[in-house]
């Protein structure tokens, strides 16, 4: 089971994302184009940084704690999913707080 240690983090974020999306009725799927455009930029920049950093030994992953599907030969698939799930969770958190602000008057947005 150790090979799912990194994947467990992703599962945790995914569960939070589904919960927040449903709980706050954010209907994020309606904005899939906006999210796709946003994450395409994030994925391009941060996977490039990640690949470069791994190649240059800035950091490395324990091969026993990842599922061992690597992109470009060296980038664990968990990292790709991380760069999709974390931006998704970021947007959901932002939308949920915006909704709360709108509901309880005194908007936090200018």
């Amino acid at each position: 089971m150790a090979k799912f240690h990194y994947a467990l983090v992703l599962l945790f974020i995914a569960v939070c994302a589904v919960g927040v999306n449903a709980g706050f009725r954010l209907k994020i799927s309606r904005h899939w184009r906006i999210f796709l455009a946003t994450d395409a930029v994030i994925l391009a920049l941060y996977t490039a940084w990640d690949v470069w950093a791994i190649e240059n030994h800035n950091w490395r992953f324990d091969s026993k704690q990842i599922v061992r599907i690597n992109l470009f030969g060296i980038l664990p698939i968990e990292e790709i999913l991380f760069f999709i799930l974390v931006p998704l969770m970021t947007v959901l958190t932002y939308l949920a707080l915006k909704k709360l602000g709108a509901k309880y008057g005194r908007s936090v947005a200018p």
Partner: protein
Amino acid sequence: MIYSDIAMDAVLLAVLADLFVLRTQMITRGIFWLTYGLILPFQLLTNWWLTSKNIVMYSATEIIGRRLAGAPIEDLLFGFSMILATLSLWEFFLALNRRSTKK
């Protein structure tokens, strides 16, 4: 300490993009800082899991060495840059979409 350098550059680039390229001014909005403040403890939690179990290991020569919740302090800069870039891009594409559907 190349990770330290790149992480600082990432924050700088995200701020410059937010203010002058995408012109979303996220860092001037309270809602942005509220969102960041809410995500930060979760970043520390996942950082702690990933580093305390040595799932990810950092080269000692590429970081300044100060750590928070197990992870190099540089990770805070990385996380901030990604959250800012994400929300800035989101608002940018949202506005772009609104403008194109209005026509």
